[in-house]
């Protein structure tokens, strides 16, 4: 149903059902975005037409008009505040007499206030309970996502058809070792590494998939834990699925588009 939802073409009943799932499933929401990206490309099939220059002029005139209107309100409010410097004449106090009607109204108002205060207190309590429930659901969702990632990892690592490559330590990580398993059909890959030194602040390890030594394909970045262990889940792009060499270098945390070859610390046999 996701492709149809991305096209806003689902019938109402199906839409309700799917939206219930989407609220609690981040993986589905991520996949929906990918379908929306595919759908958005249909925009390129429309015959290309240029708007007239007046659209831009009207747009910015509109924005400036609204900005000016907002600025005009402020000075008026300032003037009103400044003119409040008239000292009133003191007035004689008069005895206040409450008749029966006024007493009844006062009591009714007090009761209403008490009632509203109780309602407010109950709403606050409900809100606290809802927040607790939301926190529980979030924890449950995170656990589900972890379980799903672990299942995917087990599928790749345990599959007899998965390609498996050993990487040996080099350079600043001579004792490091790693094992890469990947599925050639889906590109799903899992790298398990050990004895990795920690990286400087702002840096991370990055995996590279190499079919052409002059143009390695970058993969994800990762950092080892305190024990020097790391598990990386990645997807090898279809253009690099025939890679014959795999390497890990030290790069900036955000990753690089070409490797710093002097920092290679893990490499498979060519």
């Amino acid at each position, binding site marked *: 149903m996701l*492709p*149809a939802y991305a096209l806003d*073409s689902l019938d109402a009943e*199906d839409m309700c059902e799917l939206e219930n799932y989407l609220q609690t499933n981040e993986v589905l929401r991520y996949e929906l975005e990918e379908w*929306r990206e595919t759908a*958005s490309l249909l*925009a390129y099939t429309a015959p290309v037409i240029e*708007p007239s220059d007046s659209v831009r002029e009207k*747009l910015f005139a509109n*924005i400036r008009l609204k900005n000016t209107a907002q600025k005009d309100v402020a000075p008026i409010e300032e003037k009103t505040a400044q003119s409040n410097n008239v000292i009133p004449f003191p007035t004689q106090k008069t005895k206040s007499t409450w008749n029966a009607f006024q007493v009844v109204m006062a009591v009714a108002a007090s009761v209403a206030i008490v009632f509203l205060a109780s309602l407010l207190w109950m709403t606050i309590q409900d809100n606290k309970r809802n927040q607790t429930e939301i926190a529980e659901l979030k924890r449950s969702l995170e656990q589900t996502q972890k379980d799903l990632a672990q299942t995917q990892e087990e599928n790749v690592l345990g599959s007899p058809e998965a390609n498996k490559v050993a990487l040996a330590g080099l350079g600043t990580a001579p004792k490091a070792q790693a094992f890469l398993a990947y599925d050639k059909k889906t590109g799903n890959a899992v790298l398990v590494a050990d004895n990795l030194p920690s990286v400087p602040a702002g840096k991370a390890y990055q995996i590279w998939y190499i079919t052409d030594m002059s143009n390695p394909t970058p993969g994800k970045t990762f950092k080892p834990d305190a024990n020097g262990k790391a598990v990386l889940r990645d997807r090898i792009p279809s253009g690099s699925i025939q890679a014959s060499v795999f390497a890990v270098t030290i790069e900036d945390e955000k990753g690089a588009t070409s490797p710093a070859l002097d920092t290679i610390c893990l490499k498979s046999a060519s």
Partner: protein
Amino acid sequence: MVDDLIALTNRQSSIVNRQSSIKTLTFSQSQISDTELLSAISSGDEDALAYLFERYRTILFSVIVRIVYSREEAEDVLQEVFLQVWHKARDYDESRGKPFTWLVTLARSRAIDRLRSLGARARAVDEATRDVVEPVSDAELDSIYTQKQERVQRALSELPEEQKRVLFMAYFEGCSQSEIAERLSAPLGTVKTRMRSGMIRLRELFGDALKELI
């Protein structure tokens, strides 16, 4: 003949002027990503909005015209879209998708709303009385735009006609699956299958190039 030449010259002057105004924007602005532009817009930067407008006006207007079939209505909708961008840029969340997807979805949604509000009146308009809008020639288009267009057209040419038709009815006419089934006199299940198969095939055909296209 002379009037045609004058019109053509005026059109070319307009394009040259627009290209000149784009060139006067600083080099650093040409390097700014869409996300950075949206961030600047959310802080009230009109120059950032102007740059985003220049970058996307053509494709968004093309989609809107394709849906509402009227230049006047389409220009109105395009203005509404960018006003919405101006007011809602702070709500854009990069983790939910690329700016291109967000903008195109916004434009399409507004256009479909306008089409529906025009309702029966719009559908009853005779072909001959619709605004005539002439497409821009390839020579006047940005070369990157042309390449992207060709890439998408090539992918679509590999889809069976019935799948393309269902996708276009959904995307450009805002039809639900039931409405498509009714209009094509086809079973609902068949329409659902064609839509799903068409989208899956498109995604396969775009492959890794999808990220470069959006």
